[in-house]
């Protein structure tokens, strides 16, 4: 590790991508991620790679498709409305089993929304976004350092599983400056694997396609994809636990709101509330088992998101309704203040205590009956 540098999330992500061996970047201007495109325009030629400011988001994701089919580590980035436009290409990339990294520095929606931070694209990222039964690995960094580390990781995951990997950050993470240590420059060759299109010198011609007209064949391809997704789900779940061992109140949050929640959990501990935090790092695959396990230990779960309730649905599914799940969210570009999270936690804790007492006294009444 080198010495620390102060960098914005957007620029740090771009530099990390280059150090991870990304040699093709295609992007289109959109706030709040323009620093990525500008950084790549300057830095990619220095690194001997390809930078194109594409005519549209559609062109950008399809340039990624072509570059990836030719064997190069390739990336595009955008923000919410632009990511919507890329969904067609992402579906094709998933179907054709090509590696690709797509960063979404989320802004307020729906529609043109605004340029303030948001987490309203969670559904789009983890549930598919484009058409057809496909998955993409979704990573949710919460600090600029973690954004750097996960960017490097995203290229390895994309190559290992030959599938799209989404870095899901919010506008806050893209714009804020933090000290980061960068990994060393990795030398990654243009791939010559058995699926890469490079001209058929000394081998049979190859084909990369997503059209499979025969229903039986397409069914088999879908089963093959599902098998791969199960493998990813079994091996790649990542999360961080803070004070969850004895926690009665579990807070679930990802990205920058998780930082506010971490501080709120510490403050609640001082007040005598046994609170803990689960921070999913992979949003797909989701840390389902861990949340399920905690659902049998805790008395209440609180989900905090910069949306009107998206990840909370995955938490509900994981908790299987064995424990009450409350939600605290806001969208449109408003962020959380630690005091309001603490108040919400205290209220949630109070509610669950009253409920527990009622349940206890009910039990005792039953017991006291002759």
């Amino acid at each position: 590790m080198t010495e620390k540098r102060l960098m914005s999330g957007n620029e740090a992500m771009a530099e990390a991508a280059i150090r991870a061996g990304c040699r093709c970047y295609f992007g289109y201007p959109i706030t709040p991620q323009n620093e990525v495109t500008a950084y790549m325009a300057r830095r990619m030629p220095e690194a001997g790679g390809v930078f194109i400011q594409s005519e549209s988001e559609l062109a950008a994701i399809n340039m990624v498709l072509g570059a990836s089919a030719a064997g190069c580590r390739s990336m595009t980035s955008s923000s919410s409305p632009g990511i919507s436009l890329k969904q067609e290409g992402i579906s094709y990339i998933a179907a054709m089993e090509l590696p690709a990294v797509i960063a979404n520095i989320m802004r307020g929606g729906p529609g043109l929304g605004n340029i303030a931070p948001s987490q309203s694209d969670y559904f789009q990222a983890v549930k598919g976004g484009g058409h057809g039964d496909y998955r993409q690995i979704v990573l949710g960094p919460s600090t600029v350092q973690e954004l750097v580390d996960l960017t490097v990781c995203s290229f390895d995951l994309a190559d290992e599983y030959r599938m799209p990997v989404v870095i899901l950050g919010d506008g806050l993470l893209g714009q804020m400056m933090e000290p980061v240590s960068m990994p060393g420059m990795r030398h990654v060759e243009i791939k010559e694997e058995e699926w890469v299109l490079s001209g058929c010198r000394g081998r049979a011609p190859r084909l990369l396609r997503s059209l499979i007209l025969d229903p039986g064949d397409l069914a088999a391809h879908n089963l093959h994809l599902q098998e791969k997704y199960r493998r990813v789900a079994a091996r790649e779940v990542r999360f961080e636990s803070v004070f969850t061992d004895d926690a009665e109140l579990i807070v679930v949050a990802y990205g920058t709101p998780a930082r506010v929640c971490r501080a709120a959990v510490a403050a609640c501990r001082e007040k005598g509330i046994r609170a803990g935090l689960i921070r999913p790092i992979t949003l797909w695959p989701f840390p389902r088992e861990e949340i399920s396990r905690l659902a049998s230990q805790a008395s209440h779960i609180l989900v905090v998101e910069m949306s009107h309730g998206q990840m909370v649905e995955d938490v509900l599914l994981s908790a299987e309704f064995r424990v009450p799940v409350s939600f605290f969210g806001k969208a449109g570009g408003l962020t959380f203040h630690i005091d309001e999270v603490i108040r919400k936690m205290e209220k949630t804790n109070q509610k669950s205590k009253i409920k527990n007492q009622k349940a206890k006294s009910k039990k005792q009444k039953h017991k006291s009956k002759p």
Partner: protein
Amino acid sequence: MEIIYERPESLKDVRTHYCAGCGHGVVHRILAEIVDELGIREKTVVIAPVGCAVLAYDYFNFDVCEAPHGRTPAVATGMKRVRPSNVIISYQGDGDLAAIGMAEIIHAANRGERITVVFVNNGLYGMTGGQMAPTTLIGQRTATTPMGRDFRECGQPIKVCELLSQFEGVVYAARCAITGPGNIIKGKKMLKKALSIQLADLGFSIVEFLSACPTHWKLTPREAVQYIEEKMVPCFPTGVIKDTIK
């Protein structure tokens, strides 16, 4: 005995799914012959469009990549930039290139991408059932212009080669009609030149083939050839439209 005609190595020995009288078979054959003649089979990658020619990968005996509808030039761009020594051919129909993919083709042309576009213009969407394309002639009846194309409603047929010729990045643009042997030989010369331009790293090249769709024109193959000569050629003049390295 001297062999004077045989299947090119670049074409697989299989039957195509194309309808009787369709131009795709001829264009495939010409392209395969040129690829053989230039000795570039082992470094050629064709990007297949969405449309009738999507199944081109069943027929070409070299690498093929599919692309989403109209995005063929963007996929070709990504591929060519990674491997500049490969020969990248964007094979597109008129709906793919001139409607949904107009932005991609214009910008690839304007950037002067070192790719070659094979543009097959039959004036309608063949695969989906003969709907109006940007190249449908005025008055032509299609599934979506049952009374004939009216320019006040649907605009004029778009002349792609003339449009793209405005860009400096376009080194060569030519149009030919797939009608008789004479014109087919002319078209082959054009396409050979277009690919030579890519091999010399000079810029963007495109050859447009006016091609019959007897099925959706509701004509016999013979009548369809006549239709190209009498109706299409007056609207889309054949010949070299731009050549900066004459």
